[in-house]
């Protein structure tokens, strides 16, 4: 019987580049920027790393395929480097690869690094890509906001709530994240916005306006992981460990079977349930201290609050408007500014979220540090479309908690 990943692997060091429109930097510059912070934090030599995982999703826009771009950027000593891509869960997937490698005993120290250099397309928003020979023939012509926007109408239809109340709560989600972003020097956007700004913004995909959408940026983040025992022997006393790593991937049910109503993420519900079990968490609303979720769009974050089993079904609007997820609320969500303020360099995002958890757990988050450092932090990524997606959940926390 599998015992899960809980407390088998510790985070030795982490790094995160400045996110934003890094016009003067190549992907390898961003990788080095994140890595230098992490290796210094870990207190080891580069050559002690025995295996590495590289996450990048839209590689045709920058580094190209394979693990070579990471090995070359860091001059890794001919160790195994694996490139992973799993939509927006790619960063967390790299982390999962490194963590599983250490947990298996195959290596002592492993690196997970995510990078994406998206700002060389010539236009705003995610790069428009081919979807494959057959998919291009029948998939609907819809962008990322176009697919996620559809949650809103389905949510209103299911819960019988008022569309304008939902839009108001969605606006609160974005305003809150922008407030948080002002306290993060690594965030792309560090400006406050008002509810009126969100409500009156030009429409991107109804009901998502411009400020309901996260930006697109360049960035990189990484983690160096090892066993708790080795972390201790390397001089770490405050140990942050991995409590759960779960992934749920749509099998076509939402897209093709009429049992899904379009108002929630089937994958997130399953992945979070499994993650809580793996982490030994029975009452997430009481036990989870901090969350970073995939707020690609305000509606995604709002619905995810329910799918993580923190807000009751149909109760997210109230929790959001009550400030439950604000920086000074009960369970802050996106205390670092989220995708909303960091933008979404796809391969890096998952690791950027874990980076914030790591800082908060260690009490190193500067002006945005929670007074009472959290014990359990959860990160969540959602890649693809509501009707077919990849969801990753990670829970990290204080070792032994």
């Amino acid at each position: 019987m599998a015992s899960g990943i809980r407390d088998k692997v510790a985070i030795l060091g982490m790094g995160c580049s400045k996110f934003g429109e890094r016009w003067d930097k190549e992907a390898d510059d961003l990788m080095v920027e994140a890595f230098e912070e992490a290796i210094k934090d870990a207190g080891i030599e580069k050559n002690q790393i025995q295996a590495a995982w590289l996450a990048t999703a839209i590689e045709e826009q920058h580094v190209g395929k394979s693990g070579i771009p990471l090995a070359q950027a860091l001059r890794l000593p001919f160790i195994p480097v694996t490139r992973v891509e799993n939509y927006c869960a790619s960063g967390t997937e790299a982390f999962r690869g490194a963590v599983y490698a250490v947990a298996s005993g195959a290596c002592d120290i492993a690196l997970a690094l995510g990078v994406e250099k998206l700002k060389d397309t010539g236009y705003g928003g995610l790069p428009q890509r081919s979807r494959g020979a057959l998919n291009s023939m029948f998939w609907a012509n819809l962008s990322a906001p176009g697919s996620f926007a559809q949650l809103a109408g389905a949510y209103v239809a299911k819960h019988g709530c008022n569309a304008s109340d939902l839009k108001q709560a969605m606006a609160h989600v974005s305003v809150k994240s922008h407030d948080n972003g002002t306290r993060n020097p690594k965030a792309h956007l560090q400006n406050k916005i008002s509810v009126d700004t969100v409500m009156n913004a030009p429409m991107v995909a109804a009901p998502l306006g411009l400020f309901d959408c996260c930006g697109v940026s360049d960035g990189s983040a990484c983690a160096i992981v090892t066993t708790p025992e080795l972390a201790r022997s390397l001089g770490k006393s405050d140990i942050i460990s991995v409590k759960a790593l779960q992934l749920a991937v749509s099998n076509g049910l939402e897209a093709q079977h009429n049992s899904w109503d379009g108002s929630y993420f089937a994958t997130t519900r399953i992945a979070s349930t499994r993650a809580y079990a793996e982490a030994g968490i029975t009452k997430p609303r009481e036990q989870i201290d901090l969350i970073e979720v995939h707020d690609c769009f305000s509606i995604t974050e709002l619905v995810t609050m329910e799918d993580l089993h923190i807000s009751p079904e149909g109760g997210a609007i109230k929790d959001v408007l009550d400030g439950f997820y604000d920086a000074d609320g009960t369970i802050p969500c996106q205390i670092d500014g989220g995708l909303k303020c960091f933008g979404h360099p796809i391969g890096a995002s998952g690791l950027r979220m874990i980076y914030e958890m790591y800082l908060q757990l260690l009490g190193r988050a500067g002006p945005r540090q929670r007074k009472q450092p959290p014990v359990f932090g959860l990160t969540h990524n959602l890649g693809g479309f509501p009707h077919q997606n990849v969801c990753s959940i990670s829970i990290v926390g204080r070792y032994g908690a």
Partner: protein
Amino acid sequence: MDIGILAYGACIPRRRLARKSVADANAWFNPALRGQAKGERSMCNWDEDAVTMAVEAARDCLTGLARDQIRTVQLASTSFPFEDRLNSGIVAQALNLGAEISALDVGSSQRAATAGLAAVLQSAASAGGQALFLASEKRRTKAGSTLEMTSGDGAAALLIGAGKVIAKLVGAHSRTVDFVDHYRGQGFAYDYVWEERWIRDEGYAKIVPATLAGLFRKCAVEPGSITHFCMPCTLGKVAASVAKKAGIPEGAVRDNLHAVCGETGTAHSLVMLADALAVAKPGERILVVGFGQGCDALLFETTAELQQLPPRMGVRGYLARRREETNYNRFLAFNDLVTLERGMRAELDKQTALSTLYRKRDMILGLIGGRCGQCGTLQFPKSNVCVNPDCNAFHAQTDHPFAEMSGKVNSHTADQLTYSPDPPAICGMVQFDAGGRLMMDFTDVDMAEVSVGLPMRMVFRIKDYDAQRGFTRYFWKATPAGAAKEA
């Protein structure tokens, strides 16, 4: 056994361009356009062409009828999307008629539809089975031209065969004269047109009466017995004067639909015929004329079977399904008559893998999905493993056609970000009432009318156009079903 028409159908695109908008935009150059600025013409949506309209007209024609006796499909047009790919073959595939049929494209003249129809009727007796004869047109016209004003887009469909005909063929007669009122040479996009007065006096006024005289002589029919005279002509009062010259009663001359539709090119004779069949009573005589380098005249007589035909949209049904277009710039953009800044997102390579398309032709062109033999779950696309989580049976699915199934909107949006020739791109999840669902593009829809639960029907449309290679990619889209019930 009588040979003739077993059923009819039509398709007129939902958008109607106000002629005033054409005149307002172009009268600075050609003030004479002001005089034509009355009424409206039908115009294809960006995702419609001669093939998609032919499919829609055929579906209208086949409403409530079996398709398994159809042995041949012919499509007449002078605006085929493909110069070398069997356009009628695309239609046949979209209608899921199977491979055991013959198919033929008929073109090169405004008379293509009547000439093709006459030939099909002539061979119907010996061929056996049914023939689906389609005519469809979306003419390319220069901005500010008279043709732009007088043309419309549209299609008609006729099911031809023996037996329970709603209108039997009395006779047909043709004349062929190389009278070049207009022409379009190879490699040219637009027609070159000669003087109207000459076309009227030397063309219509001489060639049509001579043809009609031949027909009446051949059939031993009195011109006074004609109830419906279907003769397209955009020149004023020509049909009436031809009728008078031929001895056809004045009241028999049918409305050429200029005010509400415009002339749908080679399809128009059959559009007018379909329009006549919708109002005709048993025992009436319908005379159809096609003009172009000569003339065809076909005479039909309706039968009591007309009243047994299941209700259909027909010309008037589609005309009632109308949305006015007053933005002439949109018409220009749809017809590639202006170099519009479409943005970088429009630059995505749209190459179609022909091997993939062939392998998946039933799915893509025919909207064939799967039905699980174990649990009965309908699903699209058809796949190796059933999507029902309580079943998941391997290799249990059989073909199931989705095109004629009704569905409802499950979720939707209007996407301003993705590239669309007519933004915003409206799309959503359509859930079929009998099972199955598909996230798909919506067309002929206004965002304000879309809500969760709105009934939808499937329509065959252009999915993408590969401008680099000239390939049109087709698939099915959803459109509000209510619009189809108006007839």
